Protein backbone atom coordinates (compact mmCIF):
# COMPACT_ATOMS: atom_id res chain seq x y z
CA UNK A 1 0.00 0.00 0.00
CA UNK A 2 2.84 2.33 0.90
CA UNK A 3 4.26 2.27 -2.61
CA UNK A 4 0.90 3.04 -4.20
CA UNK A 5 1.68 6.74 -4.54
CA UNK A 6 4.78 6.12 -6.65
CA UNK A 7 2.72 4.57 -9.43
CA UNK A 8 0.18 5.95 -11.82
CA UNK A 9 -2.59 3.72 -13.20
CA UNK A 10 -3.41 4.10 -16.90
CA UNK A 11 -6.88 2.94 -17.90
CA UNK A 12 -8.87 2.86 -21.11
CA UNK A 13 -12.39 1.53 -21.50
CA UNK A 14 -14.02 -0.28 -24.40
CA UNK A 15 -17.79 0.04 -24.22
CA UNK A 16 -20.28 -2.00 -26.17
CA UNK A 17 -23.50 -0.14 -26.76
CA UNK A 18 -26.53 -2.14 -27.92
CA UNK A 19 -28.64 0.04 -30.18
CA UNK A 20 -32.38 0.52 -29.69
CA UNK A 21 -33.29 -0.44 -33.23
CA UNK A 22 -36.30 -2.56 -34.14
CA UNK A 23 -34.24 -4.96 -36.21
CA UNK A 24 -30.75 -6.38 -36.41
CA UNK A 25 -27.63 -4.83 -37.87
CA UNK A 26 -27.54 -6.80 -41.11
CA UNK A 27 -30.98 -8.41 -41.35
CA UNK A 28 -34.62 -7.63 -40.59
CA UNK A 29 -35.33 -10.09 -37.76
CA UNK A 30 -36.41 -8.28 -34.61
CA UNK A 31 -34.24 -7.20 -31.70
CA UNK A 32 -36.09 -8.01 -28.50
CA UNK A 33 -34.60 -8.68 -25.07
CA UNK A 34 -36.30 -11.51 -23.21
CA UNK A 35 -38.06 -13.03 -26.24
CA UNK A 36 -38.50 -16.86 -26.16
CA UNK A 37 -35.20 -18.55 -27.11
CA UNK A 38 -34.37 -18.81 -30.82
CA UNK A 39 -37.56 -17.03 -31.90
CA UNK A 40 -36.02 -13.90 -33.43
CA UNK A 41 -33.99 -15.40 -36.24
CA UNK A 42 -33.55 -15.24 -39.97
CA UNK A 43 -31.42 -17.28 -42.36
CA UNK A 44 -29.04 -14.29 -42.54
CA UNK A 45 -28.50 -14.25 -38.77
CA UNK A 46 -27.96 -18.00 -38.82
CA UNK A 47 -25.37 -17.62 -41.56
CA UNK A 48 -27.07 -20.02 -43.96
CA UNK A 49 -25.33 -20.43 -47.31
CA UNK A 50 -26.42 -18.01 -50.00
CA UNK A 51 -27.76 -15.33 -47.65
CA UNK A 52 -26.65 -11.74 -47.98
CA UNK A 53 -26.49 -9.13 -45.21
CA UNK A 54 -27.89 -5.62 -45.60
CA UNK A 55 -27.07 -2.67 -43.36
CA UNK A 56 -29.69 -1.21 -41.02
CA UNK A 57 -29.89 2.50 -41.87
CA UNK A 58 -31.17 3.40 -38.39
CA UNK A 59 -28.04 1.93 -36.79
CA UNK A 60 -25.87 4.11 -39.03
CA UNK A 61 -27.93 7.16 -38.05
CA UNK A 62 -27.53 6.36 -34.35
CA UNK A 63 -23.77 6.05 -34.79
CA UNK A 64 -23.72 9.47 -36.48
CA UNK A 65 -25.82 11.00 -33.69
CA UNK A 66 -23.51 9.64 -30.98
CA UNK A 67 -20.36 10.58 -32.89
CA UNK A 68 -21.44 14.12 -33.79
CA UNK A 69 -22.66 14.72 -30.22
CA UNK A 70 -19.21 13.83 -28.91
CA UNK A 71 -17.26 15.87 -31.43
CA UNK A 72 -16.00 12.92 -33.46
CA UNK A 73 -15.04 13.06 -37.12
CA UNK A 74 -17.52 11.03 -39.16
CA UNK A 75 -15.98 8.70 -41.73
CA UNK A 76 -17.52 9.18 -45.16
CA UNK A 77 -16.58 5.85 -46.68
CA UNK A 78 -17.55 3.05 -44.32
CA UNK A 79 -16.27 -0.40 -45.16
CA UNK A 80 -17.04 -3.55 -43.24
CA UNK A 81 -14.75 -6.43 -42.37
CA UNK A 82 -14.97 -9.99 -41.16
CA UNK A 83 -13.40 -10.78 -37.82
CA UNK A 84 -12.95 -14.53 -37.76
CA UNK A 85 -13.11 -16.64 -34.65
CA UNK A 86 -14.72 -19.86 -33.64
CA UNK A 87 -17.35 -19.90 -30.95
CA UNK A 88 -20.74 -21.68 -30.82
CA UNK A 89 -22.72 -18.48 -30.27
CA UNK A 90 -21.23 -16.88 -33.38
CA UNK A 91 -23.25 -18.60 -36.10
CA UNK A 92 -21.30 -17.42 -39.14
CA UNK A 93 -17.88 -18.15 -37.69
CA UNK A 94 -17.06 -14.46 -38.11
CA UNK A 95 -18.39 -11.16 -36.86
CA UNK A 96 -19.13 -8.41 -39.37
CA UNK A 97 -17.47 -5.34 -37.93
CA UNK A 98 -15.51 -2.28 -39.03
CA UNK A 99 -11.77 -2.58 -39.01
CA UNK A 100 -9.92 0.13 -40.95
CA UNK A 101 -12.78 2.61 -41.37
CA UNK A 102 -14.57 3.09 -38.02
CA UNK A 103 -17.56 5.41 -38.52
CA UNK A 104 -16.28 7.79 -35.83
CA UNK A 105 -12.75 8.84 -34.93
CA UNK A 106 -11.55 11.33 -32.31
CA UNK A 107 -14.00 13.20 -30.12
CA UNK A 108 -14.23 13.21 -26.37
CA UNK A 109 -16.47 12.67 -23.37
CA UNK A 110 -16.59 15.19 -20.53
CA UNK A 111 -17.98 14.38 -17.11
CA UNK A 112 -17.89 15.77 -13.60
CA UNK A 113 -16.20 14.06 -10.68
CA UNK A 114 -15.99 15.61 -7.21
CA UNK A 115 -16.91 19.00 -8.65
CA UNK A 116 -14.17 18.88 -11.31
CA UNK A 117 -14.69 18.53 -15.04
CA UNK A 118 -12.72 15.69 -16.60
CA UNK A 119 -12.21 15.12 -20.30
CA UNK A 120 -11.55 11.71 -21.83
CA UNK A 121 -10.53 11.46 -25.48
CA UNK A 122 -12.05 8.85 -27.74
CA UNK A 123 -10.05 6.85 -30.24
CA UNK A 124 -12.88 5.39 -32.27
CA UNK A 125 -16.48 4.23 -32.41
CA UNK A 126 -17.34 1.51 -34.88
CA UNK A 127 -20.41 -0.47 -35.92
CA UNK A 128 -20.66 -4.21 -35.45
CA UNK A 129 -23.01 -7.01 -34.45
CA UNK A 130 -23.54 -8.83 -31.17
CA UNK A 131 -23.12 -12.59 -30.72
CA UNK A 132 -25.73 -15.04 -29.43
CA UNK A 133 -25.79 -16.31 -25.87
CA UNK A 134 -24.33 -19.52 -24.50
CA UNK A 135 -26.03 -20.91 -21.42
CA UNK A 136 -23.73 -23.10 -19.39
CA UNK A 137 -25.72 -23.87 -16.27
CA UNK A 138 -29.09 -25.17 -17.46
CA UNK A 139 -28.03 -28.59 -18.72
CA UNK A 140 -25.35 -30.76 -17.09
CA UNK A 141 -24.18 -32.31 -20.37
CA UNK A 142 -24.57 -29.59 -23.01
CA UNK A 143 -24.10 -25.90 -23.50
CA UNK A 144 -27.36 -24.38 -24.75
CA UNK A 145 -27.21 -21.73 -27.42
CA UNK A 146 -29.83 -19.00 -27.90
CA UNK A 147 -29.10 -16.99 -31.04
CA UNK A 148 -31.76 -14.27 -30.56
CA UNK A 149 -29.10 -11.72 -29.63
CA UNK A 150 -26.92 -12.61 -32.61
CA UNK A 151 -26.82 -9.76 -35.08
CA UNK A 152 -28.05 -7.08 -32.65
CA UNK A 153 -26.52 -3.73 -33.67
CA UNK A 154 -23.63 -2.64 -31.47
CA UNK A 155 -21.42 0.38 -31.30
CA UNK A 156 -18.00 -0.28 -29.85
CA UNK A 157 -16.58 2.85 -28.31
CA UNK A 158 -12.88 2.88 -27.45
CA UNK A 159 -11.50 5.54 -25.13
CA UNK A 160 -7.94 6.77 -25.02
CA UNK A 161 -5.99 5.60 -21.94
CA UNK A 162 -6.95 8.83 -20.15
CA UNK A 163 -8.49 7.42 -16.98
CA UNK A 164 -6.44 7.23 -13.79
CA UNK A 165 -8.56 5.36 -11.21
CA UNK A 166 -11.45 2.99 -10.74
CA UNK A 167 -13.51 5.90 -9.51
CA UNK A 168 -12.86 7.85 -12.72
CA UNK A 169 -13.74 4.82 -14.82
CA UNK A 170 -17.00 4.52 -12.90
CA UNK A 171 -17.83 8.19 -13.47
CA UNK A 172 -16.91 7.95 -17.17
CA UNK A 173 -19.10 4.91 -17.72
CA UNK A 174 -21.92 6.56 -15.76
CA UNK A 175 -21.70 9.54 -18.12
CA UNK A 176 -21.73 7.22 -21.16
CA UNK A 177 -24.94 5.67 -19.86
CA UNK A 178 -26.51 9.09 -19.37
CA UNK A 179 -25.42 10.13 -22.86
CA UNK A 180 -26.83 7.10 -24.68
CA UNK A 181 -30.07 7.43 -22.72
CA UNK A 182 -30.38 11.14 -23.49
CA UNK A 183 -29.73 10.44 -27.16
CA UNK A 184 -32.27 7.60 -27.08
CA UNK A 185 -29.90 5.17 -28.82
CA UNK A 186 -29.51 2.59 -26.01
CA UNK A 187 -31.37 1.83 -22.79
CA UNK A 188 -28.06 1.64 -20.90
CA UNK A 189 -29.14 -1.35 -18.87
CA UNK A 190 -25.94 -3.04 -17.71
CA UNK A 191 -27.75 -5.90 -15.96
CA UNK A 192 -29.41 -6.91 -19.22
CA UNK A 193 -26.14 -6.43 -21.07
CA UNK A 194 -27.28 -3.61 -23.33
CA UNK A 195 -24.28 -1.62 -22.09
CA UNK A 196 -21.10 -3.62 -21.47
CA UNK A 197 -17.54 -2.74 -20.87
CA UNK A 198 -13.99 -4.11 -20.87
CA UNK A 199 -11.10 -2.29 -19.22
CA UNK A 200 -7.48 -2.04 -20.31
CA UNK A 201 -5.30 -1.43 -17.29
CA UNK A 202 -1.61 -0.82 -16.79
CA UNK A 203 0.51 1.00 -14.23
CA UNK A 204 3.68 3.05 -14.62
CA UNK A 205 6.07 4.99 -12.40
CA UNK A 206 4.81 8.49 -11.80
CA UNK A 207 6.35 10.98 -14.18
CA UNK A 208 7.13 8.36 -16.83
CA UNK A 209 5.40 8.88 -20.17
CA UNK A 210 5.54 5.37 -21.66
CA UNK A 211 3.01 2.67 -20.92
CA UNK A 212 3.38 -0.46 -18.84
CA UNK A 213 2.24 -3.90 -20.03
CA UNK A 214 -1.52 -3.78 -20.27
CA UNK A 215 -4.05 -6.27 -19.00
CA UNK A 216 -7.57 -6.49 -20.36
CA UNK A 217 -10.33 -7.25 -17.86
CA UNK A 218 -13.60 -8.62 -19.19
CA UNK A 219 -17.01 -9.47 -17.70
CA UNK A 220 -17.65 -6.10 -16.14
CA UNK A 221 -21.43 -6.01 -16.04
CA UNK A 222 -22.14 -3.42 -13.38
CA UNK A 223 -20.75 -0.03 -12.41
CA UNK A 224 -19.53 -1.38 -9.10
CA UNK A 225 -17.72 -4.26 -10.80
CA UNK A 226 -15.93 -1.86 -13.11
CA UNK A 227 -14.58 0.16 -10.21
CA UNK A 228 -13.75 -2.87 -8.04
CA UNK A 229 -12.05 -4.82 -10.83
CA UNK A 230 -9.91 -1.85 -11.80
CA UNK A 231 -8.91 -1.07 -8.21
CA UNK A 232 -8.02 -4.72 -7.64
CA UNK A 233 -6.03 -4.91 -10.86
CA UNK A 234 -4.06 -1.74 -10.10
CA UNK A 235 -3.11 -3.08 -6.69
CA UNK A 236 -2.18 -6.48 -8.15
CA UNK A 237 0.07 -4.95 -10.79
CA UNK A 238 1.81 -2.62 -8.35
CA UNK A 239 2.48 -5.50 -5.99
CA UNK A 240 3.96 -7.56 -8.84
CA UNK A 241 6.23 -4.72 -9.90
CA UNK A 242 7.32 -4.15 -6.32
CA UNK A 243 8.31 -7.80 -6.07
CA UNK A 244 10.33 -7.35 -9.23
CA UNK A 245 8.00 -9.66 -11.15
CA UNK A 246 6.89 -9.13 -14.73
CA UNK A 247 3.34 -8.26 -15.73
CA UNK A 248 2.02 -10.50 -18.47
CA UNK A 249 -0.10 -8.94 -21.19
CA UNK A 250 -3.22 -11.07 -20.91
CA UNK A 251 -6.98 -11.16 -20.65
CA UNK A 252 -8.42 -11.56 -17.18
CA UNK A 253 -11.98 -12.01 -15.96
CA UNK A 254 -13.49 -10.35 -12.91
CA UNK A 255 -14.91 -12.66 -10.28
CA UNK A 256 -17.59 -10.58 -8.53
CA UNK A 257 -18.01 -13.05 -5.65
CA UNK A 258 -14.34 -12.85 -4.64
CA UNK A 259 -13.69 -9.33 -5.90
CA UNK A 260 -10.58 -10.43 -7.80
CA UNK A 261 -9.47 -10.84 -11.41
CA UNK A 262 -8.45 -14.24 -12.79
CA UNK A 263 -6.31 -15.04 -15.81
CA UNK A 264 -8.35 -16.44 -18.70
CA UNK A 265 -5.24 -18.19 -20.06
CA UNK A 266 -6.16 -17.73 -23.69
CA UNK A 267 -3.47 -18.97 -26.03
CA UNK A 268 -1.71 -16.31 -28.05
CA UNK A 269 -2.65 -18.08 -31.28
CA UNK A 270 -6.37 -17.80 -30.53
CA UNK A 271 -6.10 -14.03 -30.99
CA UNK A 272 -5.54 -14.30 -34.76
CA UNK A 273 -8.76 -12.79 -36.10
CA UNK A 274 -7.68 -12.68 -39.76
CA UNK A 275 -9.61 -9.51 -40.60
CA UNK A 276 -10.47 -9.11 -44.24
CA UNK A 277 -12.97 -6.95 -46.16
CA UNK A 278 -16.59 -8.18 -46.05
CA UNK A 279 -17.27 -8.81 -49.74
CA UNK A 280 -21.05 -9.10 -49.25
CA UNK A 281 -21.53 -5.49 -48.13
CA UNK A 282 -20.80 -2.54 -50.37
CA UNK A 283 -19.28 0.38 -48.49
CA UNK A 284 -21.72 2.89 -46.99
CA UNK A 285 -20.92 6.32 -48.41
CA UNK A 286 -22.16 9.19 -46.24
CA UNK A 287 -22.65 12.71 -47.57
CA UNK A 288 -22.24 15.90 -45.51
CA UNK A 289 -25.89 16.63 -46.12
CA UNK A 290 -27.01 13.25 -44.73
CA UNK A 291 -24.75 13.58 -41.69
CA UNK A 292 -26.03 17.10 -41.01
CA UNK A 293 -29.71 16.17 -41.38
CA UNK A 294 -29.27 13.14 -39.12
CA UNK A 295 -27.53 15.17 -36.43
CA UNK A 296 -30.24 17.83 -36.49
CA UNK A 297 -32.64 15.33 -34.89
CA UNK A 298 -30.28 14.63 -31.99
CA UNK A 299 -31.32 15.64 -28.46
CA UNK A 300 -28.92 17.59 -26.24
CA UNK A 301 -26.22 15.84 -24.20
CA UNK A 302 -26.61 15.78 -20.41
CA UNK A 303 -23.47 17.92 -20.02
CA UNK A 304 -25.01 20.56 -22.29
CA UNK A 305 -28.26 20.50 -20.31
CA UNK A 306 -26.19 20.79 -17.09
CA UNK A 307 -24.49 23.94 -18.41
CA UNK A 308 -27.84 25.44 -19.41
CA UNK A 309 -29.33 24.74 -15.99
CA UNK A 310 -26.46 26.41 -14.16
CA UNK A 311 -25.87 29.29 -16.58
CA UNK A 312 -29.21 30.07 -18.23
CA UNK A 313 -31.39 29.21 -15.23
CA UNK A 314 -28.91 30.04 -12.46
CA UNK A 315 -29.48 26.78 -10.62
CA UNK A 316 -26.87 25.62 -8.08
CA UNK A 317 -24.60 22.81 -9.33
CA UNK A 318 -26.23 20.43 -6.87
CA UNK A 319 -29.67 20.99 -8.37
CA UNK A 320 -28.35 20.76 -11.94
CA UNK A 321 -26.59 17.48 -11.14
CA UNK A 322 -29.70 16.00 -9.57
CA UNK A 323 -31.98 17.12 -12.38
CA UNK A 324 -29.74 15.92 -15.21
CA UNK A 325 -29.29 12.55 -13.50
CA UNK A 326 -32.51 11.54 -15.19
CA UNK A 327 -33.49 12.80 -18.62
CA UNK A 328 -37.18 12.91 -17.65
CA UNK A 329 -36.52 15.31 -14.79
CA UNK A 330 -34.32 17.57 -16.89
CA UNK A 331 -36.95 17.74 -19.64
CA UNK A 332 -39.75 18.33 -17.14
CA UNK A 333 -37.77 21.22 -15.67
CA UNK A 334 -37.16 22.76 -19.08
CA UNK A 335 -40.84 22.44 -20.02
CA UNK A 336 -42.04 23.90 -16.71
CA UNK A 337 -39.62 26.79 -17.10
CA UNK A 338 -41.59 27.91 -20.14
CA UNK A 339 -44.62 28.62 -17.94
CA UNK A 340 -42.97 29.82 -14.75
CA UNK A 341 -39.88 31.94 -14.08
CA UNK A 342 -39.30 30.79 -10.50
CA UNK A 343 -36.59 28.38 -11.64
CA UNK A 344 -35.19 27.50 -8.23
CA UNK A 345 -38.72 26.73 -7.01
CA UNK A 346 -39.33 24.42 -9.96
CA UNK A 347 -36.13 22.58 -9.13
CA UNK A 348 -37.05 22.35 -5.43
CA UNK A 349 -40.49 21.02 -6.31
CA UNK A 350 -39.16 18.39 -8.68
CA UNK A 351 -36.38 17.23 -6.39
CA UNK A 352 -38.39 17.05 -3.15
CA UNK A 353 -42.20 16.72 -3.26
CA UNK A 354 -42.44 15.28 -6.77
CA UNK A 355 -39.55 12.85 -6.26
CA UNK A 356 -40.94 11.76 -2.88
CA UNK A 357 -44.36 11.18 -4.39
CA UNK A 358 -42.82 9.05 -7.15
CA UNK A 359 -40.79 7.04 -4.65
CA UNK A 360 -43.77 6.48 -2.35
CA UNK A 361 -45.88 5.26 -5.23
CA UNK A 362 -43.10 3.37 -6.96
CA UNK A 363 -43.67 5.07 -10.32
CA UNK A 364 -41.62 7.06 -12.81
CA UNK A 365 -42.17 10.68 -13.79
CA UNK A 366 -43.75 9.68 -17.09
CA UNK A 367 -46.39 7.70 -15.15
CA UNK A 368 -47.34 10.68 -13.00
CA UNK A 369 -50.45 12.55 -14.16
CA UNK A 370 -48.93 15.96 -13.71
CA UNK A 371 -48.12 18.29 -16.58
CA UNK A 372 -45.40 20.95 -16.54
CA UNK A 373 -48.19 23.55 -16.82
CA UNK A 374 -49.95 22.21 -13.70
CA UNK A 375 -46.72 22.30 -11.72
CA UNK A 376 -46.07 25.84 -12.94
CA UNK A 377 -49.55 26.90 -11.77
CA UNK A 378 -49.04 25.39 -8.31
CA UNK A 379 -45.70 27.19 -7.97
CA UNK A 380 -47.20 30.50 -9.10
CA UNK A 381 -49.91 30.20 -6.41
CA UNK A 382 -47.26 29.67 -3.73
CA UNK A 383 -45.01 32.45 -5.02
CA UNK A 384 -47.87 34.96 -5.16
CA UNK A 385 -48.82 34.19 -1.56
CA UNK A 386 -52.19 32.56 -2.35
CA UNK A 387 -51.31 29.34 -0.60
CA UNK A 388 -48.56 28.34 1.82
CA UNK A 389 -45.79 26.06 0.61
CA UNK A 390 -46.73 23.45 3.20
CA UNK A 391 -50.39 23.38 2.18
CA UNK A 392 -49.39 23.29 -1.48
CA UNK A 393 -47.20 20.24 -0.91
CA UNK A 394 -49.50 18.39 1.47
CA UNK A 395 -52.94 19.12 0.01
CA UNK A 396 -52.89 20.95 -3.31
CA UNK A 397 -50.29 18.80 -5.11
CA UNK A 398 -51.98 15.42 -4.41
CA UNK A 399 -55.39 16.96 -5.20
CA UNK A 400 -54.20 18.21 -8.59
CA UNK A 401 -52.91 14.73 -9.42
CA UNK A 402 -56.11 13.04 -8.30
CA UNK A 403 -58.75 15.42 -9.64
CA UNK A 404 -56.91 17.06 -12.57
CA UNK A 405 -58.74 20.29 -11.64
CA UNK A 406 -57.21 23.72 -12.00
CA UNK A 407 -54.95 24.49 -9.00
CA UNK A 408 -56.42 28.00 -8.72
CA UNK A 409 -59.88 26.44 -8.23
CA UNK A 410 -58.70 23.68 -5.95
CA UNK A 411 -57.27 26.02 -3.32
CA UNK A 412 -60.85 27.31 -2.79
CA UNK A 413 -62.38 23.84 -2.75
CA UNK A 414 -59.75 22.68 -0.27
CA UNK A 415 -60.21 25.89 1.71
CA UNK A 416 -56.49 26.58 1.93
CA UNK A 417 -56.38 30.11 0.55
CA UNK A 418 -53.99 32.14 2.67
CA UNK A 419 -55.48 34.68 5.03
CA UNK A 420 -54.12 37.93 3.79
CA UNK A 421 -56.36 40.26 5.74
CA UNK A 422 -53.86 41.90 8.10
CA UNK A 423 -56.30 43.33 10.65
CA UNK A 424 -58.03 39.95 11.06
CA UNK A 425 -54.72 38.28 11.62
CA UNK A 426 -53.73 40.97 14.08
CA UNK A 427 -56.80 40.37 16.23
CA UNK A 428 -56.16 36.62 16.19
CA UNK A 429 -52.63 37.22 17.43
CA UNK A 430 -53.75 39.70 20.06
CA UNK A 431 -56.23 37.10 21.36
CA UNK A 432 -53.46 34.53 21.74
CA UNK A 433 -51.14 36.92 23.55
CA UNK A 434 -54.00 37.82 25.89
CA UNK A 435 -54.63 34.15 26.59
CA UNK A 436 -51.03 33.47 27.69
CA UNK A 437 -49.83 36.43 29.75
CA UNK A 438 -47.29 34.29 31.71
CA UNK A 439 -45.74 32.96 28.52
CA UNK A 440 -45.48 36.48 27.14
CA UNK A 441 -43.67 37.53 30.28
CA UNK A 442 -41.29 34.57 30.03
CA UNK A 443 -40.59 35.39 26.41
CA UNK A 444 -39.74 38.95 27.35
CA UNK A 445 -37.34 37.67 30.00
CA UNK A 446 -35.44 35.91 27.26
CA UNK A 447 -37.14 32.58 26.56
CA UNK A 448 -37.20 33.27 22.83
CA UNK A 449 -38.09 29.68 21.98
CA UNK A 450 -41.67 30.42 22.99
CA UNK A 451 -42.18 32.20 19.68
CA UNK A 452 -42.85 28.80 18.11
CA UNK A 453 -45.71 28.20 20.52
CA UNK A 454 -47.38 31.48 19.57
CA UNK A 455 -46.92 30.78 15.84
CA UNK A 456 -48.41 27.32 16.28
CA UNK A 457 -51.42 28.72 18.12
CA UNK A 458 -51.99 31.31 15.43
CA UNK A 459 -51.77 28.67 12.68
CA UNK A 460 -54.28 26.57 14.59
CA UNK A 461 -56.64 29.51 15.06
CA UNK A 462 -56.56 30.31 11.35
CA UNK A 463 -56.77 26.63 10.36
CA UNK A 464 -53.43 26.78 8.63
CA UNK A 465 -54.63 29.35 6.17
CA UNK A 466 -52.34 32.12 7.24
CA UNK A 467 -48.87 32.73 6.03
CA UNK A 468 -46.39 31.65 8.75
CA UNK A 469 -44.03 34.40 7.64
CA UNK A 470 -46.68 37.09 8.17
CA UNK A 471 -47.56 35.62 11.59
CA UNK A 472 -43.92 35.61 12.63
CA UNK A 473 -43.49 39.20 11.64
CA UNK A 474 -46.64 40.42 13.39
CA UNK A 475 -45.82 38.45 16.53
CA UNK A 476 -42.31 39.90 16.74
CA UNK A 477 -43.70 43.40 16.29
CA UNK A 478 -46.25 42.92 19.08
CA UNK A 479 -43.89 41.21 21.53
CA UNK A 480 -41.12 43.72 21.06
CA UNK A 481 -43.27 46.83 21.28
CA UNK A 482 -45.00 46.40 24.66
Amino acid at each position, binding site marked *: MLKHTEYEPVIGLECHIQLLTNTKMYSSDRVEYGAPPNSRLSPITLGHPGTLPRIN*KKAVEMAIILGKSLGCTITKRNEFARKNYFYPDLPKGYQITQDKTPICTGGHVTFRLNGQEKKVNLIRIHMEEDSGKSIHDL*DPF*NTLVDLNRAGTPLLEMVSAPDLRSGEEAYAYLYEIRKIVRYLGICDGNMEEGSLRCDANISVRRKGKSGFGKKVEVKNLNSFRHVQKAIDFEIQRQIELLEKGAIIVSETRAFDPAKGITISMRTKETAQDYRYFPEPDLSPIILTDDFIQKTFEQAPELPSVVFKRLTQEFNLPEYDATQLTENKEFALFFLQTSQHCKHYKSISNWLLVPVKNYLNENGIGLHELSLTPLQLAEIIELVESGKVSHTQAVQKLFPAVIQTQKKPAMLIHELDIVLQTNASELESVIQDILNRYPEKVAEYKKGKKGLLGLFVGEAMKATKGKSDPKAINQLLLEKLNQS
Partner: protein
Amino acid sequence: MEINDALIDHIASLARLGFNGEEKEEIKKDFSRMIAFVDKLRELNVEGIEPLIYLNERKCFWREDVPGEELSRNDALKNSPSKDSDYFLVPKVLEK
Protein backbone atom coordinates in the same frame (compact mmCIF):
# COMPACT_ATOMS: atom_id res chain seq x y z
CA MET B 1 6.56 -18.09 -48.13
CA GLU B 2 7.72 -21.11 -46.24
CA ILE B 3 5.12 -23.71 -45.37
CA ASN B 4 6.41 -25.37 -42.22
CA ASP B 5 4.91 -27.52 -39.48
CA ALA B 6 4.30 -24.57 -37.18
CA LEU B 7 2.22 -22.78 -39.83
CA ILE B 8 0.18 -25.88 -40.59
CA ASP B 9 -0.46 -26.43 -36.88
CA HIS B 10 -1.56 -22.81 -36.48
CA ILE B 11 -3.94 -22.89 -39.45
CA ALA B 12 -5.29 -26.27 -38.39
CA SER B 13 -6.06 -25.02 -34.91
CA LEU B 14 -7.81 -21.92 -36.29
CA ALA B 15 -9.93 -24.15 -38.53
CA ARG B 16 -10.51 -26.64 -35.70
CA LEU B 17 -8.98 -29.43 -37.80
CA GLY B 18 -6.48 -32.06 -36.80
CA PHE B 19 -3.88 -33.72 -39.07
CA ASN B 20 -1.79 -36.74 -38.25
CA GLY B 21 1.81 -37.02 -39.47
CA GLU B 22 1.05 -38.36 -42.93
CA GLU B 23 -1.82 -35.97 -43.54
CA LYS B 24 0.31 -33.11 -42.41
CA GLU B 25 2.96 -33.87 -45.03
CA GLU B 26 0.22 -34.10 -47.66
CA ILE B 27 -1.34 -30.79 -46.71
CA LYS B 28 2.05 -29.14 -46.56
CA LYS B 29 2.64 -30.12 -50.17
CA ASP B 30 -0.83 -28.89 -51.19
CA PHE B 31 -0.30 -25.58 -49.45
CA SER B 32 3.11 -25.09 -51.05
CA ARG B 33 1.63 -25.68 -54.49
CA MET B 34 -1.20 -23.22 -53.87
CA ILE B 35 1.11 -20.54 -52.55
CA ALA B 36 3.46 -20.99 -55.49
CA PHE B 37 0.50 -20.63 -57.85
CA VAL B 38 -0.68 -17.41 -56.24
CA ASP B 39 2.90 -16.13 -55.96
CA LYS B 40 2.85 -15.85 -59.74
CA LEU B 41 0.83 -12.66 -59.21
CA ARG B 42 3.83 -11.06 -57.55
CA GLU B 43 5.47 -10.81 -60.92
CA LEU B 44 3.00 -8.12 -61.93
CA ASN B 45 3.76 -4.48 -61.34
CA VAL B 46 0.78 -3.13 -59.35
CA GLU B 47 2.29 0.16 -58.31
CA GLY B 48 -0.32 2.90 -58.04
CA ILE B 49 -3.22 0.52 -58.50
CA GLU B 50 -5.83 0.52 -55.73
CA PRO B 51 -6.91 -2.96 -54.65
CA LEU B 52 -10.29 -3.92 -56.08
CA ILE B 53 -12.40 -5.18 -53.21
CA TYR B 54 -15.97 -4.71 -54.33
CA LEU B 55 -16.85 -5.85 -57.82
CA ASN B 56 -20.27 -4.26 -57.73
CA GLU B 57 -20.14 -1.18 -55.58
CA ARG B 58 -23.60 0.19 -54.97
CA LYS B 59 -23.92 3.37 -53.03
CA CYS B 60 -25.60 3.01 -49.61
CA PHE B 61 -27.35 -0.23 -50.22
CA TRP B 62 -28.98 -0.15 -46.84
CA ARG B 63 -32.44 -1.01 -45.54
CA GLU B 64 -34.98 0.76 -43.35
CA ASP B 65 -35.32 -0.48 -39.76
CA VAL B 66 -38.53 -2.41 -40.41
CA PRO B 67 -39.07 -5.99 -39.20
CA GLY B 68 -39.29 -8.58 -41.93
CA GLU B 69 -39.80 -12.30 -42.19
CA GLU B 70 -38.49 -14.49 -39.39
CA LEU B 71 -37.99 -18.23 -39.10
CA SER B 72 -40.11 -20.30 -36.78
CA ARG B 73 -38.08 -21.86 -33.99
CA ASN B 74 -38.63 -25.28 -35.50
CA ASP B 75 -37.23 -24.18 -38.83
CA ALA B 76 -34.36 -22.34 -37.20
CA LEU B 77 -33.33 -25.45 -35.25
CA LYS B 78 -34.06 -27.91 -38.05
CA ASN B 79 -30.58 -28.25 -39.51
CA SER B 80 -28.82 -28.46 -36.20
CA PRO B 81 -27.22 -31.87 -35.49
CA SER B 82 -28.07 -31.48 -31.81
CA LYS B 83 -30.98 -29.57 -30.32
CA ASP B 84 -33.86 -29.68 -27.86
CA SER B 85 -37.22 -27.96 -28.28
CA ASP B 86 -35.80 -24.51 -27.54
CA TYR B 87 -32.05 -24.46 -28.00
CA PHE B 88 -29.12 -25.46 -30.16
CA LEU B 89 -27.04 -27.91 -28.15
CA VAL B 90 -23.27 -27.94 -28.31
CA PRO B 91 -20.69 -29.86 -26.29
CA LYS B 92 -20.02 -28.23 -22.93
CA VAL B 93 -17.96 -25.13 -23.50
CA LEU B 94 -15.67 -24.70 -20.55
CA GLU B 95 -16.42 -21.39 -18.87
CA LYS B 96 -13.48 -18.99 -19.03
